[in-house]
């Protein structure tokens, strides 16, 4: 018994969530490209941005700017996200350049705690379950209803993805970033602006994390535990291939669909199997394509 209305709704929601996952995963890929490391602080950047938006928008609301609150709050969060990324590059990634990637991973874990502390300090009394105030839009497309949170998520996640993918794929900057990622020594010897590019990349990753985080929070509500979704988005990154920026869209959508569809269709037998299913899918894909769907295979020669 497949209810077609339900199927349409779930398909739409899977797409939205998939886009959000893709945007969340994007930050991992960008950082991986320049620093060959997983940024474990990425979830905390998301957390910070989500609460910055909440605090900023409620501050604006209390000053009579309720209608602009969300938009301006998001803007503030984007700036904070970018700045956080840059700050991480300067304080952590740069001193550890040339060291084994595990050192950077461990350091980003430290940054995770710091940023979570900062998020808590920013939120203070607002460190709680909340939701953004969005206009009461409701558009019906057949059985599917699109509301303001859907629109916010699609615009934020989709916009972030589109902008950064264009930047990485269709400009020389993207190639230069890959070169820097592969061999920062060599790159600096050939005159590539390694510091600037690395900093910019981390900044953009932070920015992407912030915007994706706000997109996520409009779909889940603002939650102290919202950072947990971000680790799941890591699956999207690997599914796509860690060094593929454009592939992340496919990775995110695949994750969104598998997660939601198995949650729905397996509900009676395996309730809540979505997360595990998403990881199993990823594992199966990786067993066939060990560097993800679009990742570049590592060159192995002796």
């Amino acid at each position, binding site marked *: 018994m497949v209810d077609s209305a339900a199927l349409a709704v779930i398909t739409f929601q899977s797409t939205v969530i998939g886009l959000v996952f893709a945007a969340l995963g994007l930050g991992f890929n960008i950082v991986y490209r320049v620093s060959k490391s997983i940024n474990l602080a990425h979830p905390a950047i998301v957390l910070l941005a989500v609460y910055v938006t909440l605090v900023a928008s409620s501050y604006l609301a209390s000053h009579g700017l309720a209608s602009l609150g969300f938009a301006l709050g998001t803007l503030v969060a984007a700036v904070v996200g970018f700045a956080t990324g840059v700050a991480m590059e300067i304080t952590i990634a740069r001193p550890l350049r040339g060291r084994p990637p595990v050192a950077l991973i461990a350091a980003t874990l430290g940054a995770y705690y710091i940023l979570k502390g900062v998020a808590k300090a920013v939120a203070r009394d607002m460190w709680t379950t909340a939701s953004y105030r969005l206009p009461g839009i409701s558009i019906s497309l057949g059985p599917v209803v699109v509301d303001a949170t859907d629109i916010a998520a699609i615009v934020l996640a989709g916009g972030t993805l589109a902008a950064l993918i264009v930047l990485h794929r269709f400009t020389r900057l993207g*190639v230069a970033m890959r070169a820097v990622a592969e061999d920062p020594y060599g*790159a600096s*010897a050939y*005159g590539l602006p*390694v510091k600037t590019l690395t900093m910019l990349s981390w900044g953009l990753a932070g920015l992407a994390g912030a915007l994706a985080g706000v997109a996520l929070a409009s779909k889940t509500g603002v939650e102290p535990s919202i950072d947990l979704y971000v680790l799941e988005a890591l699956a999207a990154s690997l599914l796509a291939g860690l060094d593929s920026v454009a592939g992340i869209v496919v990775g995110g959508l695949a994750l969104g669909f598998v997660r939601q569809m198995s949650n729905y269709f397996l509900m009676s037998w395996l309730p809540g199997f979505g997360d595990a299913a998403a990881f199993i899918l990823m594992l199966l894909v990786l067993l066939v394509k060990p560097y993800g769907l679009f990742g570049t295979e590592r060159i192995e020669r002796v």
Partner: protein
Amino acid sequence: MPPLLEVNNIEVVYHPYILVLKGISISVPEKSIVAVLGPNGAGKTTLLKSISGLVKLDRGRVTRGWIKYAGMRIENRDPEDVSRLGVIYVAEGRRIFRELTVEENIEAVAYAWGVLADPELVYRYFPRLRARRRSRAGYLSGGEQQMLAIGLALLAKPRLLMLDEPSLGLAPKVVHEVYEGIKRLHEEEGVTILLAEQNARKALEIADYGYIIENGKIVMEGPAERLREDKDVQEFYLGLKKAEGGGYRAAKWYRRKKRWV
């Protein structure tokens, strides 16, 4: 006129306390080719890396002495700043971006130099790269990789080009080709070249002046032709003793110890 590059009595230490260069001074006049020779581990690479600033990334440091390039002190500067000044270092072991295609390698470096860089330049000097432009550089043969590495350096329009063992692992014919390329570059573009080599014969063929480093110290220096004539250099670096019945198989029975050091 002062030399383009002057290295004065530098000491270089790697983390934590490995002293590698123990007071080295060299000078490279504008538009010359200077060769640095020496056995394995002597410190040739370290010398070039200290000039380019790359020692820093190996957790090394110039702890004494100074390096002057075009009148500026450049020791312990960031490598990207040094390369911006026109000092381009082509590392040993064909340091290219192996995961990128040939074309992308060129694009990446061209990005750094903006409109100044002419990607075609690479293909002009090393035409055989054109055919492989879409291959990932890691799959190129050794000679092609070396050509690409030098080609990338060209894009930066270097004033001082430092080459670290450009002949390493190349077939004789390709060594010849690469050296021809270097010579052409020197002549046509007027690039000053600092060359570190094991292949002393090849290096001294094109160099104006040479230094021999052993164990972090300069043990001998002089104009190239004079080094070529030196008996010890001949024996230990050029292997010219064959005429006297030496050769590799004979090395088993007879081996003279070096006098220097």
